[in-house]
């Protein structure tokens, strides 16, 4: 493994050339980048509901209309109406506009005794105030228009513009929005309020915000990382290297997106920040290790320090890169294109950044040859590490129990809070609530119906079904139910037209505001309607009818629940001979919220599962896997609890926090556990090993966590609410993970010892000496190393007494290096040399097998290395490895038997 890690170091020029070439290639690929802020990426395409939606839109028209909102206290004057007409004319004349539905195009049917008139709601502009007043009354008389296109008081109205789908595709939403705005602007001065709101504006604003975020957030993050690293590490080199690696990674990522056709979406706005912030952690770990080595070996050249740094950090770093990549890739199977694309781009970014860091940073450190004076341990280290250490040192058993108990209680409380979590996927909720777009949407909702629409389609096999009063009545009952639900603003269907016609053909008598009694009457009334006016409500053959529902709900949970209820009731109303479907783009986006929740749980479970397996493999035991999970689970629970407590919804942004944050936080756990293992093996004392680990790891851990938390916090400056929420939650989760790693993990660590995979891999010993030892006869390399690693390595100087005759202990020793004498002290004072042992020989095995006093001294006759096997520890740590224990026991028995045979022979 080290050969791979050292590869860049060995071929520096080739490495630099390769990185340069790949960066140029990526820069070329960036030309192919495209932006997608469309709502389509928030929908699971190809699903049954999506196909049904497309069919409905094809038949009845789109639910994506642009609403031009006009409000003015003096709206009902000849002057203002003339301006309104001019606005209508300009909009209708636009090539991109398919139709404009407003007072100038919709029909007014007005019945009086013996006569009926059919005119446009406003086919001409009256010239006298009295006529204007009359017109206003006439228009407000129409129940289909009042509260829908015009406010109840008449001070606000809407022009509903349908944009040609081809124009939207060819020109893009930004151009369409601009063209519309160009026609609106000349009228702006004439009305108190005049604005457009619809898909074109929403997508344009998303795109603008995306650019703004990408432009602002990246420099902010870079500046912040620079400051934090300078503050904690006191090294200019250390501060600039992460920015360089992040810059290259960003180019690679954007280049890959360009080549692969992955669009830049609203979540991509976070990418530069994420690369800078998360990427810097790996650099920080490497540089911290390098600087520490420089301090330790002040006279050695930089390359020596870099090699030591890679030896120590290379493998853990590879593993942390892997876990971070897995964290981001956790959402790669999401149904939502938006999340899937982001998962692809971000996991690539993390991989690229990790590799660039691992390859380039060592070379740069050598080339830049950081001065020995730089990188002094920051003064902060003193109080920070001391504080943590003090907390750990003072934590006697009862305090530790208290801490663990407190953590458990905290987790229980936050788990309860997490139950209040709600999900939303409404695109309007992506923006901050004080944004003009949102306040405009609220204003429309206040005066008219909400801007969001969905359709209820009822389908019959019977010809001209919806000319039959019996079937029309079903639509009427569904609409009544919608009214009783009291969550949607407005519904309109053929029924409303029929009732209006019936009333007006009966001189406007309110008691006739009901459905016609027979098919003939319905058909004959409809002679007065144009197909164009009905096309949104009934199919040409009257087999399919549609109820258009407008609303202003942003809470996906409420919307989904209400729609589910409506779906159920509607199905019951229409009966078995008809089919009812509720469709709408807005609805599908919100329905995805449910899948968002499921996907979140799923990806979290998969990720935790992978982490568990990885950690189990790494620590070569499931117990190790479980322990490594604890510092991950605590922040997840706390994060969901905070979301529930503060009412932050689960949305495409926040849904990714758990997996991503844990993917990052697990890095610290890995560093912590590996460091602890090393110290534990060296020191042979768990408590001391924990202390040393905390002392060593606290600073880089706090540095990286603070940097990460602040970096994620930068995302709060985003104009997208979901990115701000993501940033805040990720920052909080980082801090929760720090708490778990510094407080909880040491408590757990001090109670057990784990053998990590890279300890095994890194163990370098004289293989021949080990293999030649009878103790390891017939054992595999892995079994030997595993057995070795639950032991302790001990070094002795010449003359040191490794075993003292008469002592009582249950350790046996394997001689690795040097020679020892076995000397028996007779009662009469004579010393007798029993044996001189060589590497591979075992001694102290009798006391190991049975609790008896030592029968001889074992004295080093030079510098000696031994592996000490403690009976209790072997019994405890290898209880899950019965095959290894069995082989060791067999070999010890063989050695003992052979010794016995030898004694008897003597």
């Amino acid at each position, binding site marked *: 493994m080290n050969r791979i890690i050292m590869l860049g170091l060995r071929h520096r020029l080739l490495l630099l050339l390769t990185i340069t070439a790949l960066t140029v290639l990526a820069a070329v690929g960036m030309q192919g980048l495209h932006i997608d802020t469309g709502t389509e990426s928030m929908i699971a395409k190809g699903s049954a509901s999506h196909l049904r939606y497309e069919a409905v839109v094809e038949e009845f028209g789109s639910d994506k209309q642009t609403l031009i909102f006009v409000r003015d206290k003096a709206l009902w004057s000849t002057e203002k109406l003339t301006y309104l007409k001019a606005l209508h*004319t300009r909009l209708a004349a636009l090539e991109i506009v398919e139709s404009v539905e407003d007072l100038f195009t919709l029909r007014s049917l007005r019945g009086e005794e013996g006569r009926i008139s059919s005119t446009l709601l406003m*086919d001409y502009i009256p010239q006298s105030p009295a006529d204007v007043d009359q017109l206003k009354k006439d228009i407000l008389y129409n129940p289909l228009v009042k509260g829908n296109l015009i406010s109840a008081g008449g001070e606000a109205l809407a022009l509903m513009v349908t944009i040609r789908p081809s124009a939207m595709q060819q020109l893009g939403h930004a151009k369409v929005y601009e063209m519309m705005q160009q026609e609106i602007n000349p009228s702006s001065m004439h009305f108190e309020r005049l604005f457009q709101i619809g898909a074109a504006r929403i997508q344009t604003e998303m795109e603008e915000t995306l650019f703004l975020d990408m432009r602002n957030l990246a420099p902010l993050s870079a500046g912040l990382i620079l400051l934090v690293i300078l503050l904690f590490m006191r090294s200019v080199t250390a501060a600039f290297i992460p920015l360089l690696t992040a810059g290259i990674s960003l180019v690679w990522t954007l280049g890959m997106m360009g080549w692969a056709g992955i669009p830049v979406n609203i979540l991509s706005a976070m990418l530069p920040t994420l690369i800078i912030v998360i990427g810097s952690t790996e650099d920080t770990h490497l540089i911290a290790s390098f600087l520490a080595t420089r301090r330790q070996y002040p006279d050695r050249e930089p390359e020596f320090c870099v090699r030591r740094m890679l030896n120590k950090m290379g493998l853990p770093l590879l593993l942390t890169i892997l876990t971070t990549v897995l964290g981001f890739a956790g959402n790669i199977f999401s149904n939502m294109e938006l999340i899937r694309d982001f998962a692809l781009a971000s996991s690539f970014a993390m991989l690229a950044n990790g590799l660039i860091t691992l390859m380039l940073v060592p070379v740069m450190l050598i080339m830049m040859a950081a001065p020995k004076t730089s990188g002094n341990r920051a003064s902060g280290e003193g109080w920070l590490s001391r504080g943590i250490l003090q907390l750990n040192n003072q934590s006697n058993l009862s305090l530790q129990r208290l801490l663990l108990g407190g953590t458990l209680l905290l987790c229980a409380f936050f788990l309860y809070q997490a139950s209040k979590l709600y999900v939303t996927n409404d695109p309007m909720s992506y923006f901050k609530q004080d944004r003009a777009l949102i306040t405009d949407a609220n204003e429309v909702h206040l005066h008219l119906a909400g801007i969001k629409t969905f359709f209820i389609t009822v389908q019959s096999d019977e010809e001209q079904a919806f000319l039959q009063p019996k079937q029309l009545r079903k639509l009427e009952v569904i609409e009544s139910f919608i009214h009783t639900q009291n969550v949607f603003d407005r519904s309109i269907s053929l029924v409303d037209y029929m009732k209006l016609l019936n009333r007006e053909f009966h001189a406007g008598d309110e008691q006739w505001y009901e459905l016609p009694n*027979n098919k003939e009457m319905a*058909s004959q009334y409809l002679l007065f309607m144009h*197909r164009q006016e009905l096309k949104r409500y009934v199919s040409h053959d009257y087999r399919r009818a549609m109820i258009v529902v407008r609303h202003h709900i942003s809470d996906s949970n409420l919307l989904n629940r209400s729609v589910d209820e409506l779906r159920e009731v509607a199905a019951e109303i229409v009966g078995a001979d008809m089919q009812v479907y509720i469709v709408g783009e807005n609805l599908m986006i919100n329905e995805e919220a449910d899948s968002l929740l499921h996907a979140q749980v799923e990806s979290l479970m998969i990720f935790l599962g992978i982490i568990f397996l990885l950690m189990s493999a790494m620590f070569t035991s499931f117990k190790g896997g479980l322990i490594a999970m604890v510092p991950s689970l605590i922040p997840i629970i706390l994060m969901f609890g905070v979301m529930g407590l503060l009412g932050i919804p689960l949305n495409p942004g926040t849904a990714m926090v758990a997996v991503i944050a844990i993917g990052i936080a697990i890095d610290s756990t890995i560093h912590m556990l590996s460091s602890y293992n090393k110290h534990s093996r060296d020191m042979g004392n768990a408590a001391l090993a924990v202390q040393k680990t905390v002392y060593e790891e606290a600073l880089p851990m706090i540095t990286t966590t603070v940097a990460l938390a602040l970096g994620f916090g930068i995302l709060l400056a985003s104009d997208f609410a979901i990115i701000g929420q993501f940033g805040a939650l990720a920052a909080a989760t980082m801090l929760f993970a720090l708490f778990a790693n510094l407080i909880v993990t040491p408590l757990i660590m001090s109670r057990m010892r784990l053998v990590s995979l890279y300890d095994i891999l890194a163990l370098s010993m004289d293989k021949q000496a080990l293999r030649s030892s009878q103790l390891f006869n017939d054992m595999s390399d892995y079994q030997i190393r595993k057995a070795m690693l639950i032991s302790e390595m001990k070094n002795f100087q010449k003359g040191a007494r490794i075993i003292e005759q008469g002592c009582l202990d249950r350790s046996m020793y394997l001689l690795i290096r040097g020679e020892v004498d076995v000397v028996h002290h007779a009662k009469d004072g004579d010393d007798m040399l029993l044996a001189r042992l060589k590497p591979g020989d075992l001694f102290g095995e009798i006391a190991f097998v049975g609790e008896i006093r030592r029968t001889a001294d074992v004295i080093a006759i030079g510098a000696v290395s031994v592996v000490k096997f403690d009976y209790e520890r072997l019994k405890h740590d290898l209880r899950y490895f019965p095959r290894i224990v069995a082989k060791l026991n067999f070999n010890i028995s063989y050695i003992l038997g052979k010794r016995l045979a030898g004694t008897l022979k003597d």
Partner: protein
Amino acid sequence: MFQPSVIKRSAVVSMLLVYVAVLLFVSIGMFSTPLYATAVTIKHDEQSMRLAELTGQEIIMESLRRHELYPYVYEEQTLILMDEKQHRDVRRIQRYSRLEKSGSLKAMIKFIYPESIAGASLLFMRKQNGLRNSRFYLPALAMKPINYSGSVLGSQMLGSEFSLEDLMPENIHAFVYHRIADVMDNDRRYFVVQAVATASEDIHRTYVKRILLIRQDNFFVTHIDYLDEESQLLKRQTRHDIRQVNGEMWRADMVMVENFVNHHRSILKIDRRVYSIDYVPASMFEIANHLDGTAGPLDNARASEQAERAKSTAAMNISEAGEIR
């Protein structure tokens, strides 16, 4: 592959068809037109007319004189409504029109298909001074005809792209006609006349502006563009299957209106046309007045009964007309 025998065969068949068509045309002309051709004086002084010097007004007057002044016309029509997705809706209509000696015009459009709207009728009257009145009779309502009023844009006739105005002879009182540059199309020269609503006319009840293309050889209007105040094209009427009916009189057997705002089309096909006073008796226009009473939610049975009666009355009138023929 070129196959001379096939070409020859098809040429012979074509000639036979043309021959049969000419025979039919002559027969129809013989049976249906002479009675009235003599009754109306049609001044014909083409030799003295200098086409180039004609004004817009004169062109329209000549067109009307030639083609629209036949007093009694009965037509069986098929109205095809097509939306922007080419979905079709077919209705069958009987149209009666009668030009009284006083110059007033009466027309009745009566639906006979589909069944659910059979009997629904629209009566249109225009006095010599241009005053208009239209009334509807809906058998399902079984009430007296309802006076119907509406602006030209809001009153597209019965769901079609035609307005009532479009189906009636030109109302010369409502417009001022200006001749603009002639055009050529398919080697045929056309007058181009712009009709602008007069200031005195209720502008909201008629078109603001129209451009008419009139064939110079027969003064037949083949093409009308309807424009709004901004001169934006709203819809276009084109006339097809034009044939000479009698003397200078030509008629189109198919009229199409294409709406450029909603992209719908309406096609009116004349399946049968009879010029006969017997087919258009004065009583025909009184039919709606034969009925009275009102229907309410509680007396549906009565409403249905009256509707049936109305339908049978209407049917009876038609069958009587048929017998006369």
